[in-house]
């Protein structure tokens, strides 16, 4: 385990990033991070979607197994973070989606098509979080030791 201070006590910037019908939320969050030069953030979101691809990380294959979500679903909870890899923001987010009968499915978000809205509340911290490539998993992981 490693720890990094992200905010020494300054007022943190808060953004409401609101998606509407037909928006793809994963690429939209990346676009937000690039446009607002976000280098360290965390967020939570609720809303609904019509069609998404979730992922389950297969450690054997070092790849995400795709979980297609077809049709209208509640986005019951989405949480994630934004950090920098090689100078570019990377969005990492997971969600739980609700079926019409209240049962749920969940996973790593690969794409999500919003319907009718997704309300993402973002807290941006002043100190950059850096990611490094992890050869054991082929993923980029946050490394608090990197400056």
């Amino acid at each position, binding site marked *: 385990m490693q720890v990094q201070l992200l905010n020494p006590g300054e*007022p*943190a910037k*808060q953004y*409401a990033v*609101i998606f*509407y*019908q037909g928006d793809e939320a994963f690429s939209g969050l990346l676009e937000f991070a690039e446009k607002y030069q976000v280098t360290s953030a965390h967020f*939570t*979101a*609720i809303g*609904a979607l*019509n069609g998404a691809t979730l992922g389950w990380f297969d450690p054997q294959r070092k790849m995400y197994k795709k979980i297609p979500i077809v049709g*209208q679903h*509640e*986005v*019951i*909870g*989405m*949480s994630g973070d934004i950090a920098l890899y090689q100078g570019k923001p990377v969005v990492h987010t997971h969600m*739980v989606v*609700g*079926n*019409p*009968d*209240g*049962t*749920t499915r*969940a996973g790593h978000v690969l794409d999500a098509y919003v*319907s*009718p*809205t997704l*309300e993402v*509340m973002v*807290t941006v911290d002043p100190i950059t979080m850096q990611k490094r490539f992890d050869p054991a998993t082929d993923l980029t992981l946050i490394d608090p030791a990197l400056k």
Partner: protein
Amino acid sequence: MRWKQIEYEPKVFALVFETGDEIASVLRRFAKHQGLGGSSFKAIGALSYAKLGWFNWETKKYDPACVLREQVELLSLIGDIALKDGEPQVHAHVVVGGSDGIAHGGHLLEARVRPTCELILTESPIHLQKKLDPESGIALIQV
């Protein structure tokens, strides 16, 4: 429900619900009383009753996805508060877990606390406004 302000810039409140409190209505009253209009919150706890909704795109209404009349863990409650016609509107989603560990989730319609629910709410200085969206028939946050 008891509450305490734990930070001032931005405003952060800790709300602690007690057995029998209904989360949605208590939160609406708190939002109105405090004049909240740009908040986000998350909570965990446990419930004795939950009524969850699922947005039906055809009817533009929330169908009751499930009603749970049993003790469940409140695994996650995430939501926000924005203004519609000057009145705070609470929007929240929940995931609950039963004794078998199976999760159910949906739009919060009703949730009765037993024995506690711990909610942390951050209020931004800039308020959010909601407007009726003719396509979906519900009020969406406009930015």
